[in-house]
């Protein structure tokens, strides 16, 4: 996975690529308009771009209120995932038996559709915030913990030998070598975890809620208010981008010293 996407993203950097993005988006909007005019598509199937923009502006207070809810759930789930996965990954790397017990189970759970248990959380915890936060947490937890474990393990053995030859204690090796080494991996997990916790919050809101952007999507969908649906989708596009960029920005501030950071660019796959 580490190699995947590097060559693509390295092409997607720079100002000329921003221009290409603008051209592509412009073309996209033109095709959008063209389809509507040529096939005379009604607004409830595919609204015109200007209708969507008007919807965003006029419904701004509504959108903001629901965005606030989704954002709260996403961030709480995300931070819960960090708080849980850091101690777990340290325990896994520190004690062999813990590793041998937990890691196979986590590897197994990796390919399991975790969204499937989401309704269970709604049965157990009702329609409030709690199930959404827990689903966000569940989705964000795995990338963070597994990346963190990998990072603490993928230490060049010369570094550990050096530390040992300087008679560093196991604890010192951990704090001075393993933890710093894990940071770039950790941030990779965080980036993916952030996107997945947003996905989790929205999916949970699909299933049963009274507020949030996922609720708003279902609300608009049932009433065939497609302009509102598109408005929410655009808000989500921006929200995802901003959340991702914030984590990226923190990463740049925190581990800019790391050589991995300079050469590694990854495309994150989310749903």
């Amino acid at each position, binding site marked *: *996975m*580490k190699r*995947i*996407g*590097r*060559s*693509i*993203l390295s092409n*997607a950097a720079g100002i000329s*690529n921003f221009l290409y993005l603008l*051209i*592509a988006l412009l073309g*996209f909007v033109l095709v959008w308009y063209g389809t509507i005019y040529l096939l005379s598509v009604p607004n409830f*199937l595919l609204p015109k771009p200007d209708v969507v923009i008007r919807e965003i502006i006029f419904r701004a207070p509504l959108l903001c209120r629901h965005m606030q809810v989704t954002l709260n759930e996403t961030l709480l789930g995300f931070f819960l995932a960090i708080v849980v996965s850091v101690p777990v990954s340290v325990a896994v790397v520190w004690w062999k038996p813990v*590793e*041998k*017990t937990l*890691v*196979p*189970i986590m*590897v197994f759970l*990796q*390919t*399991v*559709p*975790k*969204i*499937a*248990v989401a*309704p*269970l959380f709604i*049965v157990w915890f009702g329609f409030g915030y709690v199930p959404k936060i827990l689903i966000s947490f569940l*989705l964000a937890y*795995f*990338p963070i913990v*597994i990346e963190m474990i990998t990072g603490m*393990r*993928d230490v060049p053995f010369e570094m550990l030998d050096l530390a040992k030859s300087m008679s560093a204690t196991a604890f010192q090796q951990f704090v001075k070598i393993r933890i710093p080494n894990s940071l770039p991996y950790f941030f990779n997990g965080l980036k*993916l975890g952030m*996107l997945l916790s947003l*996905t*989790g919050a*929205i999916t949970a809101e*699909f*299933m049963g809620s009274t507020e949030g952007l996922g609720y708003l*999507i*279902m609300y*608009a*969908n049932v009433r*065939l208010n497609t302009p509102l*649906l598109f408005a*929410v989708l655009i808000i*989500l*596009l921006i929200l*995802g*981008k901003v959340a*991702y960029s914030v984590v990226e920005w923190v990463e740049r501030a925190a581990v800019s010293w790391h050589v991995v950071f300079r050469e590694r660019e990854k495309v994150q*796959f*989310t*749903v």
Partner: protein
Amino acid sequence: MASVTENKRGKKKDAIYPILGVTGLLACWHLAVVLFAIPEYVLPTPHVTAIHFFQNLGILYPNALATVYETFAGLLLAISFSIVFSVIVVWFRPIEKLVMPVMVLLQTTPKIAVAPLFLVWFGLGFLPKIIISFWLAYFPIVVNMITGLRDIHPEMIDLSRSMSASKLQTFLKVRFPNSLPYLFTGVKLGGIVALLGAILGEYVGADKGLGYLIMWANNSYDVKLLFSVVIALVLIGKAIFSIIVLIEKHTISWHVSARGGGEKFFTA
């Protein structure tokens, strides 16, 4: 990367630990239900759950068939589309420059959010679920395939050029074989994600399928049925993944990656 999964291929006696872990978990589950007197409609004991899974097989089977059908249709659609698309993108640079930034932008958005829209457009039948599966599976497959077509040792290209191979020949004999391991990585991720897409599509609106069954069980507070469906989904997810791995091992047995392990798959 390999270090996380290396246990799987490790010594036989290490298998005792996860077995102990799972047994401990089941024991805790059972004890918690018995000690706190949790009613069956909130959390059934493990053995009740297992018994109900087998009793529910009759309901599960036709619904599982629908979900599997949607998943495979979406996945195959995604594979064929992304192979064609990635060949076009790698062959013509300007198209790549136009399309890639948009795809990178879409990578960071929650793509399941458009699922309800597909239901408005394509109704409540199989079609919207297949399209949602396709839509989720398409991205990991196409991005991996493009990377595979591109990440080539320059010596290989130089060699084929020095043998005066045409562009088409270079493509068929060098680039395409090189992309296959990447393609399979994408398809493995895509397979899981396609299953997710089918379930989510069924959540939003359907009259059959495991996702529909989950919603139905949820609305009627039938936690035992819910657990049965979750078990079925775990098994189906594992089966799809194993089938893809099997095909990979047979198709590109010559490649290092076919020896297994190493990849990480984070999905929802």
